[in-house]
């Protein structure tokens, strides 16, 4: 619903120009958003949200009513089309900014890094705004870039009327500033954690590559790096060769819980398992599929049979194997049946007698 407003002819002309170009604004909105989304995705940059909007008729009329004399034409208004990229991390704001610089023409004269114009003793609206344009479209648009926490602050801030110009008692202003300062610290801390984690992962990968597996404790990151070395490949290929079977690659991360449950502490422990129990695992596989015509196996056959061989040899018995299947497949009575079957099949295998 358009509200009835009394605007002078100059402002009416701007409004008319806006209405004439509205469909084109919407098209450019979509184009810019798609380009941004694609570029960030290609760069592997995960963001919390990309928002956009074209200013509504009433909002523009209201703005013109207040300060229409400031603008010669619609082209002087840079916020008819606005986009916002909300990042998870503070250092991603600059990465998004450099993507925006590559994608669009930036009006540097009117672009403000609000993060830098703060007084030394003030906190609050930290956000990066670029005024941009694209060839073939005569109007500029704005792209705001901020973190989730900056976004949260900006929204709360808006809601409390902090920026409305209405006099607000000093103690509330002080509280708002304290909050803003805290959020800024939290953003920095999140960033630090990410940097430290990346660093940790790099160090672990280097240790795994160099073969110092006894020094690497088992967790999700280290196990994933270890799997990249395809440690079970040799055993899998040996088992597959029995029936000229194809090996289907499947995720092996579920075995992390099994290795932990078996009490393994370092990647060296898994490496030793492969060294000491591959023969037992192979014997189990031979017994099970050697006399069948099954010619497809999964890449988890190696770790599965290694764990079975280890559990049986260590005296874990039926309960131990059932526990392993419970970890992998969820608890079920059928796991009990399979454990019993495995126990029966394996008891006369050579590795059990050694």
């Amino acid at each position, binding site marked *: 619903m358009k509200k009835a407003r009394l605007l002078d002819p100059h402002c009416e002309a701007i409004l008319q120009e806006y209405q004439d170009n509205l469909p084109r604004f919407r098209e450019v909105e979509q184009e810019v958003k798609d380009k941004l989304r694609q570029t960030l995705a290609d760069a592997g940059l995960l963001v919390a949200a990309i928002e956009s909007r074209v200013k509504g008729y009433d909002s523009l009329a209201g703005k013109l009513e207040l300060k229409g004399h400031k603008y010669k034409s619609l082209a002087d208004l840079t916020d008819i089309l606005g986009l916002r990229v909300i990042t998870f991390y503070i250092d991603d704001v600059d990465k998004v900014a450099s993507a925006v610089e590559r994608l669009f023409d930036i009006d540097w004269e009117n672009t403000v890094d609000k993060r830098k114009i703060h007084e030394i003793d003030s906190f609050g609206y930290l956000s990066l705004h670029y005024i941009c344009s694209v060839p073939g479209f005569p109007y500029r648009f704005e792209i705001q870039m901020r973190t989730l926490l900056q976004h949260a602050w900006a929204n709360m801030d808006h809601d409390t009327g902090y920026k409305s110009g209405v006099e607000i008692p000093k103690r509330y202003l002080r509280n708002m500033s304290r909050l803003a300062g805290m959020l800024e610290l939290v953003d920095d801390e999140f960033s630090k954690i990410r940097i430290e984690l990346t660093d940790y992962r790099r160090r672990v990968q280097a240790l795994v590559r160099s073969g110092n597996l006894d020094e690497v404790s088992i967790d999700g990151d280290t196990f994933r790096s270890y799997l990249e070395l395809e440690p079970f490949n040799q055993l899998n290929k040996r088992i597959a060769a029995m029936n000229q*079977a194809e090996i289907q690659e499947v995720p092996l991360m*579920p075995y992390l819980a099994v290795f932990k449950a078996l009490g393994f502490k370092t990647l060296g422990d898994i490496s030793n398992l492969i060294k000491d129990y591959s023969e037992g695992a192979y014997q189990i*596989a031979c017994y099970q599929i050697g006399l069948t*015509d099954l010619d*497809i196996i*999964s890449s988890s056959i190696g770790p*599965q049979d290694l764990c079975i061989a280890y559990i049986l040899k260590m005296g874990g018995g039926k309960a131990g194997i059932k526990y392993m299947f419970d970890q*992998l497949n969820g608890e079920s009575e059928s796991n009990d049946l*399979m454990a019993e079957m495995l126990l029966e099949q394996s008891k006369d295998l050579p590795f059990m007698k050694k």
Partner: protein
Amino acid sequence: MEIKINTQDSLTTAQLIGRLDTPASQEVSGDFDNLAQYAAGTIVLDCTELEYISSSGLRLFLSLRKAAASKGGKVIVKAINKDIRSVFMMTGFLNLFEIQD
């Protein structure tokens, strides 16, 4: 080998009846292609009356699972008998599927 497919909203149930050996797998591969159309939802392979599965049958199950993974759906293997369960275990595919008793 017979497959009865029943679809209701995002849940598709396929009743597998008989022996899924190599010739039967070729016979029903068209049915599995049809099933893959519903891979964005949940597909239950009801194996109550499935007596046997060969490598070719396993491949059909796997390609259906792949289709579901790429479309955000899932495949549930329901009520497999002891022999079929041991085929899944011996080949290392047991934990790849959600198996319901």
